[in-house]
């Protein structure tokens, strides 16, 4: 019964989120994010249809669609990446470097597993595959959030909601699926409802923060440090622009 209530509430929240975005016409501002929400809503509706009409096929259908939802989840990360860092080219360079490191680590792990003939195996179980996908998402989110926090990149209410909501869900999923793979944890009904509750919390965060459009504040052209440079002297500015153009040409200061 509790599971059914969660299910319906999730579907209602997803529909509300989409309806609000379409009503206020800002879904085009976060295309990848709303693509994810649409996919998940469709998956939930299909699941409900299968659950009521073909209950025996439901477990298999659930895991296959869960894999699809986890894959589409990368669209949310792409949204965060483009929205948060598009005006900060230097930070994008750092982010790209770190993301490449993660990609290299994943490839090494895959190759090592394939060579040794053991270890990582995508076909082991669907739950294990989802766990690994969520773990990779967690690593990517970790990089993006660490950069946002370290460089104190200003974020609007919408983006903050997307980041906080999805990160909470991914962190909970990684922990849940990790523990769920242990014998004795997975089958417990209470344990199995943790992930849907976390997802419902995420949807509530999204509904609250994406109710109206709040664009990301860009780099402040009149920031304190910028004004102080002006105060320093016009000469310093000329030297600065010369130095930057010199650096762009590949020279050294």
């Amino acid at each position, binding site marked *: 019964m509790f599971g059914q209530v969660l299910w319906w509430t999730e579907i209602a929240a997803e529909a509300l989120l989409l309806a609000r975005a379409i009503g206020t016409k800002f879904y085009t501002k976060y295309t990848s994010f709303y693509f994810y929400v649409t996919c998940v809503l469709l998956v939930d509706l299909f699941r409900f249809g299968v659950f009521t009409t073909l209950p025996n096929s439901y477990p298999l259908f659930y895991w296959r669609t869960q894999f699809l939802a986890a894959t589409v989840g990368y669209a949310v990360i792409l949204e965060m990446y483009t929205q948060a860092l598009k005006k900060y080219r230097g930070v994008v360079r750092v982010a790209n470097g770190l993301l490449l490191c993660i990609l290299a680590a994943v490839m090494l792990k895959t190759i090592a597993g394939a060579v040794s003939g053991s270890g990582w195996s995508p076909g082991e179980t669907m739950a294990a595959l989802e766990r690994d996908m969520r773990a990779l998402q967690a690593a990517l989110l*970790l990089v993006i959030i*660490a950069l946002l926090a370290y460089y104190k990149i200003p974020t609007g209410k919408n983006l903050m909601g997307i980041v906080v909501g999805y990160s909470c869900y991914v962190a909970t999923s990684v922990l849940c699926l990790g523990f769920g*793979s242990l014998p004795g944890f997975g089958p417990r009904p209470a344990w199995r409802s943790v992930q849907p509750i976390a997802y419902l919390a995420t949807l509530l965060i999204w509904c609250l923060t994406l109710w109206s459009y709040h664009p990301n504040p860009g780099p402040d052209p009149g920031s304190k440090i910028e004004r102080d440079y002006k105060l320093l002297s016009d000469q310093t500015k000329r030297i600065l622009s010369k130095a930057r153009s010199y650096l762009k040409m590949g020279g050294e200061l």
Partner: protein
Amino acid sequence: MSQLLPYLFLGLLLSAVLAWWVWDAIVHRSTAEVLTPRQHRSTARSVGSQRDLGERIFGTEDWDFVLHETPSEIQRMFQRERTVLALAWLRRTRRQTSQVMRAHVAVARQSEDLQIVVEIKLALNYLLFLGLCNSLIGWVWLLGPVRTRKIVGHTLQWAARQRAAFAQLMARVDPASCRVVGTNFNHGTVRN
């Protein structure tokens, strides 16, 4: 159970970093602070005295004098007051390092010439410095400045090397900010 540890670590780390980011965004949103040239000028005047102060607080001269010339009650009083001074000095050093880091981050995030290796090195150095500084504060609080002067000396030598790395980076990113950095890290080493 051991195969669970990476997932547990990753999940908890993500939660911790997220909490830190949200807390930082909420608390520091309205109080974004960067080094200004006005502060720069005031600190420039006090660089020499600050270096002398550090050497004086952790040096042995005063303690030797108090140890040989005064009764034990005065010695205890000296240690108490010197501990308070040392803690204040260390906290100020930590605050100034953080200001330099904030100034660096404020300039670096708008720069197109960021270098990932230097950035990571700086971030790790800064984290290490904060850890060291906090542990020093703990040691001084527990043992007093006289007994911990060797550790403080090593830390300040290390901080001076850190300053060189900052200056190098800031010179690339923004020559004007380089001056700001230069004025805040001229702590000398402490004589052991």
